[in-house]
């Protein structure tokens, strides 16, 4: 393993089955602790060699791009909450650079597994990656997105919009004043737009046109922001309405046609 780290840019110890119960069910001969051990070894070794490198210029390079892992989604019945809590623990504990979530592709007709021909859960995979990004780049805590009340991610809306709709009291956020941490929570505004807005507003106030030109998904963001003392959403509009409007305006290959007809209010 040490040898591998000298050559490879990044090493991945794939745990494949996210939970201990899942492992017991599908691979009873395997022990979870044995699978975690190499990860621990890598974490320590990477830190150790980095420290060495600071002192000795000629110390060997060891997996300079860190380590990652992969888990299979949808093979052993765990909830999104289980998966993301485990991923979050990995990020914190082992300093992982990436966790990969791969939807299970049925290959055997074992009764414990989804049958051959069952479709790969692409959408679920996508939502898990979105959540992963929220944790790593958007300063979200995993408990805000997934908890006892919400153990599964919504399939029809992305987790950021889902969080926003559950926490409407935080909005509208003033894009000319709010700090970065809050700006990152506005649906329709990504990290790059947030950085642009934060840099540009030092020079002068920004309005709707500025945001549109910067590439903000304004039709989504408008329900959650205010700028130049202007809010874009009427106060009596409910979370459900926003959800319907956003869904009606978005086009996704995953979107099901039965979104529900828009109701007049």
């Amino acid at each position: 393993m040490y040898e591998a780290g000298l050559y490879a840019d990044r090493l991945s110890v794939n745990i494949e089955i996210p939970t201990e119960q899942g492992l017991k069910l599908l691979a009873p001969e395997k022990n979870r602790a044995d699978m975690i051990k190499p990860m621990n070894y890598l974490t320590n070794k990477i830190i150790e060699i980095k420290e060495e490198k600071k002192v000795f210029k000629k110390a060997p390079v060891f997996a300079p791009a860190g380590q990652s892992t992969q888990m299979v989604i949808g093979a052993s019945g765990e909830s999104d909450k289980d998966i993301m809590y485990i991923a979050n623990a990995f990020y914190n504990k082992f300093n992982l650079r990436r966790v990969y979530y791969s939807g299970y592709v049925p290959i055997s007709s074992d009764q414990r597994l989804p049958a051959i021909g069952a479709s790969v859960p692409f959408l679920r995979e996508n939502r898990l990656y979105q959540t992963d990004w929220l944790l790593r780049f958007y300063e979200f805590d995993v408990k805000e997105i997934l908890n006892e009340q919400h153990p599964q991610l919504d399939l029809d809306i992305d987790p950021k919009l889902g969080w926003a709709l559950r926490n409407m009291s935080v909005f509208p956020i003033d894009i000319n004043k709010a700090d970065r941490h809050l700006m990152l929570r506005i649906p329709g505004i990504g990290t790059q737009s947030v950085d642009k807005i934060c840099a540009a507003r030092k020079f002068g106030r920004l309005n709707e046109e500025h945001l549109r030109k910067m590439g903000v998904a304004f039709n989504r963001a408008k329900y959650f922001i205010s700028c130049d003392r202007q809010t874009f959403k009427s106060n009596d509009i409910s979370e459900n309405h926003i959800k319907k409007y956003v869904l009606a305006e978005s086009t996704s290959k995953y979107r099901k046609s039965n979104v529900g007809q828009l109701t007049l209010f």
Partner: protein
Amino acid sequence: MNHSSSIVSKFSSVIYLYDNTFEGLLTSIYEGYVQKNFQAIITIKEAYIPLMFADIFTIETNADKASRVWKGLVKKLSPGERNLLVKCFLSELPQREEIIFQYVQYALSSTINIGSNYGNKYVLELAQIGKMVGREKHRMEAFVRFQKLKDETYYAVVEPDFDVLPLISSHFKGRYADQKWIIYDLKRKYGIAYDLEKVNQIKLDFELETIDADNVVAAYDIEEVLYQTLWKAYFNSVNIKERKNMKLHLRSMPRRYWKYLTEKML
């Protein structure tokens, strides 16, 4: 620097014609300052269609004048921001001269760095075009497929959206330092060639367009066809049918790049 400046420039009657080089553009900007024509239209000489009632100046590219403008920019802009100006120039977009001229004026007139004022039209557009060109550069570092010729030269053809060969040359020089290679831009009819020492700009004498597939194959090294077969087989076997996602595939690798990709050839 307000939004009306672009409207004014449409009616402005001073036109500078330059020779389609970055140095020529900087010289034109210098002349704009000397003559106080801050809304002058700068445009390429060859592509110019005469307008009535316009004062037309043909700008002679002058290294000293260009470097004076550049030195001024060095004081006001970060290396990354200056690089954006070059990228914008390489974009070959019709609005590039206006954006660069107005951006330079804004940068030089300000006491503080204006590179991050994305509320300004020209700053934002320069950043966006710079990003587009940067993406094309990145793609051209990935979508180049070399073919080994009989004389040990690795030869590749590209047709990038923007003129990115000057941007990718250092990557390939560092990456393939021990082999001779040529990357030829068919759209712009020039290429870059590495001779194990340095990268030169080249123009190939023969008409490349007239060469059909058979002729190119005739110039191949003996093993080239074998390696192409191997490469295609590799692509076929790493493919996971169940996970095919054409939309994503096309987003990362649009069809216009397929033409010269070995793995996409039948």
